């Protein structure tokens, strides 16, 4: 492994999803070990119901056209790609409890853990990012 990238995803719009998954897949493709900790609104990014229809940030709805034109991959496609490349997805247990969501609400292959699970991974990461 060429390095280690630890990402916290704590926001839930389409923009946030692209920021998180683009960096994650690019890092994994560069042989980094990658884990994403999904917390608060960030859970939208792996929520089966939500992740294929994430909203644009308020006032930016007009950019939808731009995404189409640039032929940017859909979020479910990026999720699949990321998992295929070995990116670890960690859902935040505490947020799930607060929102009343079970693990079944999320895409397959995620782990569920608390802050310490993520910290254990992130403590010796080369790159740490928060979105």
């Amino acid at each position: 492994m060429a390095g280690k990238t630890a990402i916290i995803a704590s926001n839930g719009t389409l923009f946030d999803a692209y920021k998180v998954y683009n960096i994650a897949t690019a890092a994994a493709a560069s042989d980094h070990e990658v884990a994403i900790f999904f917390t608060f609104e960030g859970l939208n990014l792996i929520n089966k119901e939500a992740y294929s229809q994430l909203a644009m940030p308020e006032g930016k709805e007009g950019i939808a056209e731009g995404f189409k034109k640039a032929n940017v991959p859909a979020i479910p496609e990026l999720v699949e790609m990321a998992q295929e490349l070995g990116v670890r997805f960690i859902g935040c247990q505490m947020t799930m409890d607060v929102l009343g969501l079970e693990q079944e609400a999320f895409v397959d292959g995620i782990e569920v853990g608390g802050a310490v699970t993520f910290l254990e991974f992130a403590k010796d990461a080369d790159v740490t990012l928060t979105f």
Partner: protein
Amino acid sequence: MIQTDKVLDAKGLACPMPIVRTKKAMKELAPGQVIEVQATDKGSLADIKAWAKSSGHQYLGTTEEGDVLKHYLRKASETEEQEEKQFPHTVTNDDLQDQLSRKDVLVVDVREPAEYAFGHIPGAVSIPLGELDSRAGELEKDKEIIVICRTGNRSDFAAKQLADSGFSRVKNAADGMTQWNGPTEQNEA
């Protein structure tokens, strides 16, 4: 058109897909093989270079045809730098440069066509190592043949091969193209 072992079509794909696809395609190549990655994402130029640097593969160069960027990469081979050179007759790059003007000297570049295309010694003949056996007949036996590659290892092997097939005046340019400071030229696009 540059001959490669694999062509990857990543046209129309946005960042980071060209890199993700390249990474996958690279897995299917044998060490030393060359891939052409076609992309329309303009950011892929900087990304491919950075990716090659971090992954240890060799970035050869990029050509542009209309909106399409064609990136050339050669898969790294771990042993290449470490192998011991065995062919006894070698020349340094300084000697080689002095001898370039001689009419009875022929430089044979045994790197892959894409490596040759992005920078070779003017007048050098391109015969990739893998084709040397079948194409040795193209070379004149009475000339002194100086074989060169990137780091002197493939050319070491090639020099032995030529000596074994009856070429009496063969030398390995052991420094290789990585140490070459003399003039180079590129294939015309």
